[in-house]
């Protein structure tokens, strides 16, 4: 078994037992990156030199007994919207092409304290706005399962890198489905934790009230291990919430007896791909066979989630992205006359079309005269959606649902119709609006050989229930590797 085909926990265990050195692990990862990048292009920046240096340091810390976590020495990748001191952080935008942060995001620091070796920064939709990773200024990432398809987005680079075994695990961020949807498209596991669980300090904000960092890996156990490393109360983030327990590994039990699972039948209407539908229902059946109770119910308000989300997310984004102005850091237009022209040209040239669309939308909904009609109304809708979930969780421990209406679309098919693309977020978005935890786990492949994922949604702070159900389901199937990986990059 090659180093990179091991799970993160397996590799961590071998490193701890000195069967594999950190340097060997990191070199294996970098070698796989070299092989895969020409095909998949998961990374914006690969930090070969930094990773090798860091490997020496981590090995020393392990040898001295100063680090002993389950993933110490294991190579990881982080999405390029997480600040890394001394390492370029672009958000896949031209406007940050030369931006080198002076500090490291809290979540990445958590990884580093546990001995992670960051090998590079993964590609994403520009400023996490998109569902395909095609809006990146640094080229599109391809789906390792079929290079003609998108990996999903916005954490497409992180999910593709994990699937292509370029890293053992990765961090992504999820504002409206950006971890769960590409995880589903790439056949990996991704968790969007309860809002406030992982510090957002150092995450370059898209929509502050919805953004949440989470783990992406090839199985549930690895995700739980990573979540344990990054979940912590952080005083630097006012929205960070102290939790009673940060034990997630303990929830990995192969048993769902007594678990009540609800399936929102309003998710199974027009627009949902038949094959996806079948996969979700049969996966639910598997859980039922293992002892869970499963029933259909009406969640309601489903059709209001997408419009409410785009109003709130864009309003926040328009304001969050105003700091990128060519004054302090990042791209500044080459020619301009005076301050306002510099702003205009730097931003016009520095941002891509989708980002500009969302900034304009956000500016519009906050404009005087429209605030009540759009922004306030969206906030009220958000509150109602949360209430609908509260009601559902009185009856169910977990909600099982599709992640996306279809498997990964072909490259170049999505961006021309943004409205349709926005609508494809329908199953993931309300989880962010309500601040809930969600997990995406692979449940099979469609006729084209593309992975299909199932989403499990829990009440706030109930990641443990999700992990238990996901882990139990995972025990019933064998992990599949994408073709390009099996072929060693030759496919």
């Amino acid at each position: 078994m090659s180093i990179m085909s091991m799970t993160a926990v397996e590799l961590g265990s071998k490193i701890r037992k000195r069967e594999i050195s950190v340097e060997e692990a990191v070199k294996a990862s970098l070698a796989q990156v070299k092989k895969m990048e020409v095909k998949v292009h998961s990374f914006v920046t690969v930090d070969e030199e930094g990773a090798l240096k860091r490997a020496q340091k981590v090995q020393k810390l392990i040898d001295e007994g100063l680090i002993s976590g389950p993933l110490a020495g294991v190579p990881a990748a982080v999405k390029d919207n997480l600040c890394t001191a001394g390492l370029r952080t672009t958000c896949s935008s031209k406007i940050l092409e030369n931006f080198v942060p002076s500090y490291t995001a809290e979540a990445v620091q958590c990884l580093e304290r546990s001995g992670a070796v960051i090998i590079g920064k993964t590609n994403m939709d520009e400023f996490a706005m998109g569902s395909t990773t095609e809006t990146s200024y640094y080229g599109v990432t391809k789906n390792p399962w079929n290079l003609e398809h998108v990996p999903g987005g916005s954490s497409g680079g992180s999910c593709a890198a994990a699937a292509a075994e370029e890293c053992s695990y990765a961090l992504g961020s999820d504002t409206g489905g950006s971890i769960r949807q590409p995880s589903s498209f790439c056949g990996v596991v991704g968790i969007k934790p309860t809002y406030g669980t992982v510090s957002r300090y150092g995450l370059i904000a898209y929509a502050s009230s919805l953004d949440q960092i989470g783990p992406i890996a090839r199985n549930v156990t690895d995700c739980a291990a990573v979540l344990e490393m990054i979940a912590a109360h952080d005083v630097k983030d006012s929205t960070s919430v102290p939790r009673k327990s940060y034990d997630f590994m303990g929830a990995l039990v192969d048993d769902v007896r007594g678990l009540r699972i609800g399936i929102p039948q309003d998710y199974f209407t027009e627009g949902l791909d038949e094959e996806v539908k079948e996969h979700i229902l049969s996966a639910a059946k598997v859980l039922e066979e293992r002892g869970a109770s499963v029933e259909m119910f009406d969640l309601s308000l489903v059709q209001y989630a997408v419009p409410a989300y785009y109003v709130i997310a864009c309003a926040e984004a328009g304001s969050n992205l105003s700091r990128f102005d060519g004054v302090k850091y990042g791209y500044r237009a080459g020619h301009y006359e005076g301050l306002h022209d510099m702003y205009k040209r730097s931003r016009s040239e520095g941002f891509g079309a989708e980002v500009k669309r969302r900034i304009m939308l956000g500016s519009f909904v906050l404009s005087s005269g429209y605030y009540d009609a759009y922004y306030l109304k969206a906030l009220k809708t958000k509150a109602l959606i949360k209430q609908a979930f509260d009601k559902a969780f009185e009856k169910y421990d977990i909600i099982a649902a599709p992640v996306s209406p279809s498997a990964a679309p072909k490259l170049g098919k999505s961006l021309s119709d943004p409205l349709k693309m926005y609508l494809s977020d329908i199953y993931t978005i309300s989880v962010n609006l309500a601040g809930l935890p969600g997990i995406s786990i692979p449940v099979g492949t469609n006729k084209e050989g593309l992975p299909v994922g199932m989403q499990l949604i829990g009440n706030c702070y109930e990641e443990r229930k999700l992990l238990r159900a996901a882990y139990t389901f995972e025990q019933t199937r064998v992990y599949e590797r994408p073709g390009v990986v099996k072929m060693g990059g030759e496919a």
Partner: protein
Amino acid sequence: MAKQYETVIGLEVHVELATKTKIFCSCSTQFGGAPNTHTCPVCTGMPGSLPVLNRQVVEYAAAIGLAVNCEITRECKFDRKNYFYPDNPQNYQISQLYLPIAKNGYVEIETGGTRKRVRIHEMHMEEDAGKLIHDEWDDTSLVDYNRSGVPLVEIVSEPDMRSADEVIAYLEKLRLIIQYLGASDCKLQEGSMRADVNLSVREAGKEEFGTRTEMKNLNSFKAIARAVEGERERQIELLEAGKKVIQETRRWDDNKEASYPMRSKEDAKDYRYFPDPDLAPVIIDEEWIERIRAEQPEFRTEKLERYEREYNIPRYDAEIITESKKMADIFEAASTACGKPKKVSNWLMVETMRLLKEHGMEPEELAFSPENLAKLVELTEDGTINSSVAKEVFEKIFSEDVDPEKYVEEKGLKTVSDEGALKEVLQKVIAENPQAVVDYRKGKAKALGSLVGQTMKMMKGKADPALVNQKLKELLDH
């Protein structure tokens, strides 16, 4: 001029709070410092940085709110005010619009013996911006973010003032309240207190307000008074000429005593305010409010009454002393220590004020301890030192806070009370100045003064002049 006009004025006052650290990060708020040295990722708007509210800011703001009789908002929120300008690193200012910390208050002012209330519409917390420095040689601008994130409160009055005198009285009142709370030093010159004046005029007797302008860049009380007068005249002239006042923001140039338009209502910005999603609502519960209320100091109005009653000093003295919290504190402590409030008051009113003026200092900068002033009063009263020596010693107390007992001892400044020694000197002086003695005996009172002076000189100032006078008379009158 046939018509009579009434001036209508409302004020927006910004006050920098005296917290040690900034409103949303732990950088120092100290004034000055090399550019961009009191900065971090938060106050320079670096991507990914997040604000965390400094609790002391809420504490000060609530204390000011209570002191100006406002209702305190139990769950207030921060909003983002969006606009592009390089001194504002995020291109939005974190402020409060929808739920400010305090509203519906008032302060009492007194002008020319008349009392009135100036109502306060609302008060909110916000962050200050950085400073732009324009390089005239290189045609570029530089930005210093040291001030970025310094906490401010903005106090917005109702249009209740009618003259420059009322404006100054209102500002003085606010300044004193805030200084008494220790919430700010309120220095207009250094910008820790800034006032924008909204002014309109209307024909006397009319209900309806005229069109108002907003005046900025007012750096002293005098400039504010001049700007109020100047703007009143400008608007009346326009109206008299049959023209209209344009609603606009104007900039006052105090050197030229004239104002210039900055921007008109037409280019008024849409700030697209919305609640800042990075900050949680601030919950101010009853317990917190009660604690802040209990900690409110005694303000000037109460002090004035108490000083007259308790210390039995004239109203005039009390008014001057209570104009500064620092001075009032010194007065009270020194009076308690020596039990002679009027004497303490004299030292503060005369010598202290003189020295402050001489050194160009504010009363708030007084640094000597009240105990030393009290000791000085005692030394003077019991005749240990005479009044001219006392003045000399006080200068030392003022500048170096010396212990007057030790100082007098060390420098040998005690009044010579040994009558034998004095008599010797007197006889010597009489012997050496026969002409003066003759003159005195002929009835020239002035001659005695010259003899007293000679004696004091010979005794190096350490004699009690009254005693010298008396003894000289005794000797000469025989």
